[in-house]
Structures are given as C-alpha cells and as structure tokens.
C-alpha cells in the first residue's frame, strides 16, 4: 500500500506538471481573432546603447501603429544574449512574432524550421523581392530554398584611418596589404604606447570574419560545394596566419588587444587616437563620433588584399528580419516587415544606426562625408562576399573564431605560432564541426 500511494502521488504530480505545461503554452500569446492585435518584436542592439535603440525605434513603431492599428511590443536585446534568446524561443515555442537576426546566422536558423519561409505570397505581401539589393537578399537563407529572413540593415567592413596621423608620418592611405603593414609600422611606437592598428583579437565573432575575409582574399573557400568544411586548405591557413602576423611578425598591434573581446574596444582606441587604423564595420561611425572624433578627421578605404590577391574587403554583413512560423498574427507580422523595409523607414533608421541601404536605388544616409558613403557603398555592392550559406555556419563562427582567440593569446603571451600550428588549430575546429553535424 505504501508503494501504491507513492506511485499515486508521483502520477498526480506528473499530471499536474503536464497540465501546467499545457496552460503555459496556451497563455503564451493572445488570440489573433480580435481587432486588437499586438506584435512582439525583438530588436538587436544597433545604436550606441540598448536605451538609444529604444529611443530611436519607439517613434518609428508608433507611426506603424497609427498607420495600421497594430501595436508593437518592443524589446531590444544585446548581442551577447540574442542568439541564446532565439535558441530558447525556438526550443520552447514561446517566441516573439518578429525578430532581428545577424544575417550570417540566416542559414543556420533556417535549418531549425522555426522561421516562416518567405514564399511568393509572403514576398508580395512585404512589397516584392525586387525592391532589395540582390546581394543583400541572398543572405536571407540557403540558395535554392525559400528564404527565411529579409535584409534590414546593411553593413560592411572598412579600414578607418586617422588623417592627421597619416599626414604627420607622410604615408598615404593603403591600397594593398603590404602598404597597410608598412604604414602601420611607421605609425607604431611601443615606447610611447602608440600602435598602428587595433584588433579585436579576443572576440571570436570579429576574428572569424577576418579568417573568412583573409581566406577569401587567397581565393579559398571554408565549405565545399557539398556543405562539408574545408577549413585547412592552404589559402585559409595562410590567410589566418597573415592576420595573426599583424601582432606576431609585423608587431603593429598592442599584444593587450588579445583581451579585446568586442569590436567596441578597438574602435575606442581609434577614436581616442591611441591607434592610427582600425578595421571595423561602418556602424563604428556612431561610436567614433560619440568618443569625440569629428567626421572629417578620419578617412575610410577598403580593407586591402595582398598584391595579386582577390579584392574581397568584407563579408556581406548586416541584420536581417525574420518572422516566427508559429506566430498567431502572420498578416500583421508581414505588414510590419513591409513597413520596416520600406524606403521611408530605411531612411529614418539609416542615420542613427549607421547602416547601409538594403534597397535598390537608396542613398546611404549614415554619414555626411560623401566620400565615406561612396566607399562603403562600393565595398558593400562590389567587394563583399557572403559568408557560407550552410547550416553549419554558426559552428564555423564559434569554432574557428575561438581557435583564433587561442592563437592570439599564445602570441600575446610570448609564444610563436607557425603555419603548422594554425593548420592544426583549424583541423580541430573542423573536427568539432564534423562531429556535431
């Protein structure tokens, strides 16, 4: 009897739990039948702070409510949390209606099947796919399948340089990798704590972008046509080593950079004139200006390839917009996507978020410097290569990026890294990806 009642207690408990679970999923989102519709929107951090994002977006969302009667519940989420929050949302089914994603995650998130595919009807509902720049739209998902995200903000890497420092050292803005290194060496004086470049060498997300771009400059791919990783090809190894050598062999970056775990730290060094150059995406503008540097004081050139290399200066960076498949407000969500990718909204948001237009024929508004705008537009439209659009892309980012963190740490603490060691590190990364796919 004692046992029987124990079993009964357990069964009752389990029943209670499953009932509670049912209740939970029911109350997740309010029914969509009424006239009162509210969308939940998770925005990524694009401005100078989460609060700044909220301030910028609120009037834009109020306008949308005025136009359509659809209310929008906004939450701005920092980059450190965004991917985990999306994972949790997918796993639990307790998801927002619309979400911003880093466009490099598009194919990985598409593979989860949690996002609404933009088929012809959906594309028509948001204003047709022809309004987008084709390279930007191509980041929306795997080739040959309906995309599950559409471009929202465009970004590209550029090499920022301090005009006054360059003039004082009598160097010209570099056109090749070799010129960049020479210029950086002239501008480096460790005794005075003055360095040619700042690198976000402890940030795996930044590091992996440079692994990709430097590999691409060597005409090398990170994934084969079959979707299998090809990390250890000679071009990739040499590309990674070339980037590491900025700290190791050329000594133009402060070894302390190995602890810079996000791009803001290297940009701040540039903005406070501790370094002469920094390679960053164009949204660095808002941070540079916020730190007191004026628009005319710095110039931008494409991140140069070595002589004879492929002219790849950036990956097609940016933010995309996705709709969760289990949304109860599909039509309202699509209306919202249409509104956010509308020419007027894009112009309103382009300046505060320092983004490049993702729409055809749109003018960049993120800077008053016409030359800078022209250069970034040119990089984005003609010198950018999309990151591999394969489901394992996220694993490529974390494994290769972290491998580079480790290699930079070794260099900074006095070790040396040879091509063989780079190859071994990339082999480990490749094995990790292979083991979990």
């Amino acid at each position: 009897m004692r046992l029987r009642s124990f079993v009964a207690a357990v069964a009752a408990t389990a029943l209670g739990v499953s009932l509670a679970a049912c209740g939970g999923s029911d109350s997740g989102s309010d029914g969509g039948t009424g006239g009162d519709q509210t969308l939940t929107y998770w925005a990524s951090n694009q401005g100078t702070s989460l609060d700044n994002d909220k301030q910028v977006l609120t009037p834009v969302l109020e306008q949308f409510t005025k136009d359509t009667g659809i209310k929008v519940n906004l939450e701005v989420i920092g980059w450190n949390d965004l991917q985990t929050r999306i994972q949790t949302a997918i796993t639990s089914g307790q998801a927002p209606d619309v979400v911003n994603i880093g466009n490099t995650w598009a194919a990985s998130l598409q593979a989860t099947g949690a996002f609404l595919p933009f088929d012809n009807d959906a594309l028509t509902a948001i204003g047709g796919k022809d309004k987008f720049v084709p390279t930007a739209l191509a980041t929306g998902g795997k080739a040959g399948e309906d995309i599950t995200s559409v471009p929202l903000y465009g970004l590209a890497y550029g090499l920022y340089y301090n005009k006054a420092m360059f003039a004082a050292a009598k160097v010209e803005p570099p056109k090749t990798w070799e010129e960049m290194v020479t210029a950086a060496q002239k501008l480096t004086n460790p005794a005075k704590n003055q360095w040619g470049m700042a690198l976000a060498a402890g940030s795996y997300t930044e590091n992996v972008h440079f692994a990709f771009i430097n590999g691409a400059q060597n005409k090398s791919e990170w994934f084969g046509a079959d979707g299998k990783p090809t990390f250890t090809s000679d071009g990739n190894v040499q590309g990674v080593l070339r980037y590491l050598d900025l700290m190791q062999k050329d000594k133009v970056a402060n070894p302390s950079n190995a602890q810079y775990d996000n791009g803001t730290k290297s940009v701040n060094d540039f903005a406070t004139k501790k370094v002469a150059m920094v390679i960053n995406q164009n949204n660095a503008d808002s941070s540079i200006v916020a730190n007191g540097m004026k628009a005319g004081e710095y110039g931008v050139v494409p991140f140069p390839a070595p002589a004879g290399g492929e002219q790849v200066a950036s990956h097609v960076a940016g933010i995309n917009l996705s709709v969760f498949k289990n949304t109860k407000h599909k039509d309202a969500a699509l209306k919202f996507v249409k509104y956010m990718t509308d020419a007027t909204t894009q112009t309103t948001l382009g300046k505060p978020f320092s983004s490049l237009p993702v729409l055809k024929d749109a003018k960049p508004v993120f800077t008053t410097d016409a030359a800078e705008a022209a250069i970034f537009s040119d990089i984005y439209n003609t010198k950018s290569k999309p990151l591999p659009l394969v489901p394992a892309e996220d694993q490529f980012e974390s494994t290769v990026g972290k491998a580079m963190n480790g290699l930079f740490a070794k260099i900074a603490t006095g070790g040396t890294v040879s091509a063989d060691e780079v190859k071994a590190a990339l082999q480990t990364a490749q094995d990790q990806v292979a083991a979990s796919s």
Partner: protein
Amino acid sequence: MSVATHEATPAATKPPARKSKPGIEHRPGLRRWLPYALVAPAVLMELVIHILPMLVGIWMSFVKLTKFFIANWSAAPSAGINNYKVALDFDNAVGEGLLKSFGVTVVFSLVTVALSWVLGMAAAVALQPAFKGRAIVRTLFLVPYALPAYAGILTWNFMLQRDTGAVNHVLTQLHLGDGKPFWLIGSNALISLITVATWKLWTFAFLTLMAGLTSIPRDLYEAASVDGAGNLRQWRNITLPSLRPVNLVLVLVLFLWTFSDFNTPYVLFGTAQPPAGDLIAFHIYNASFLTWNFGSGAAMSVLLLIFLMIVTGIYLIVTGRKSRRG
C-alpha cells in the same frame, strides 16, 4: 497491509465508533494519507526542480538533438550511444577537448578545495580565542560570501586586466616580475581562476569550521596545556579529531561545488575563455549552446554526473569505514 486490517474489521462495530468520536485517530483513511499529504509539496517540488530535468537530460543524451530538431523535440531521431561515443573518443577533437577540460577541472578543484580549507582552518583557529575586535574581523572575513558572486568576480576581472588592472599596477610599483603579465589569457588564467574561486569559497570553510570549533569543550585544551602540549600538538590531537565529522561534510561539499563551478569562469572570462581556464561545466555549456548540439552536451553532463556520484560514493564508503574503525 492496512487495507487488509480494514476489511477484516467486523462491519457492525465500526460505524458507530466512527459516528460517536469523529477524531483523527479514528479515521484510518486520513491517518494513512496525512503524512503523504504533508510530504507531497516537497516531493512535488523535488520532482519538478530536480528529478524531471535530470530525466529529460538523460533522455536528451540518447537523441540527436541538433539545431534541425530543437523546434520539434519529439522528431529528434535516436542517437543510441553515439553521443557518448563521441564524448569518450579521446582521439577525436570533441573527446580530446572534454578530456583536457576534465584535467583542468581536477587540478582546479583539488587546489581550490585545499587552499580554501587551509585558509578557512587558519582563520577559524586564529579567531578561536576571544580578543577585542574579534567580531569585526569575523564580519570582514565574511564579505566575499555576502557579496553577490557576479559583482565580486567582475571586480576581479577589472583588477586582472593587463594594462589597466590593479594587480599589475601593484606588481609594477613593487618591481615584482618582469613586464606586464596577462592574467586572463594564456597559462596564468588557471592561477587567476583558482585565486578568485578560493576568495569566493574560503569563507564558507571558515564559517563552517568556526561553528565546529565552538562545540569543542575548552577544558580539553586546558588539560592538554597542563600536560605540556604546545599549540600545534593541541591542534593536531584535539582540534582536528573533534572537527572530523565537520571536515568530512565540508570537504565533500567544497569539492562538489568547485568541480561543477560555472559562474566563476563564465563571469571572469566572458566569451573569450582560455584553454587553461576551461572548466568542465563551462565546457559543456559551450559544447551545447555554441554548436547547438544539445544531445552531445547532455551526454557530457550525464558523464559528469556519473563521475561525481562515483567519487561521492567512494568518499562516503572510505570515510564511513574509517569512522567505524575509529
């Protein structure tokens, strides 16, 4: 068995008794259920908070729960023991990583527990005799325990920065060491991690041992003094044996906490964790959340659980046997 008694009771005598005295002692049904009803909330909470997630975790370790299936768990195909095979194949990158992380964690735990215990014991013994200001010193020692872990570790993170940190500043002022060492990357990371974990943990050892010391009768020490035993002798022959039951529990708890420590490396290193500070709980988190392979992460967690259960079991058996012999 009680049901049988109930049925055996003659039906004629029972009902009047129940009517005349409606007390608990005369209602065997309620009497039987009351203990269970009282225990039920605790059992329920235990099930919901501990047992169910553990069972789900064990289930997860046997399925292929990658990004292709997290939106619909039930569709995840069985992986058999494949997740375990990968985790335990030490020639492979994943298994090798796990083994290295395990090694780092063993070293980290042993050193941290030893340091915490020694410091806690030293402080507790030092504060054993009453003196002026003892309460103040005691309170001061408890600060690391009272501080929120996040704030404390974050402060260490600032102090251990290479260029702007207080640690390197002090070292330079004292002309100690050469140049400015890195504390959060490279091989020094393990030293930093042990320092911070010990700082966080030793006060718990101190608190527990201090409580244990108060229960040792003073006259034991007095008698020993009369017999001419010095301080060290007293500590070895009186304090240590008297604290044995406290120490048994304390060391086990400290070990279990340190071995599965997640907060310290997570807050101290952020996303840029160095291999020398790659503790196993953090390693498993990365293995599941960064690569979106929750099945593999769950398998590693189950292996960790089994390992800790074995260690705990052996520890309890060995120490239990010694206690009986004593």
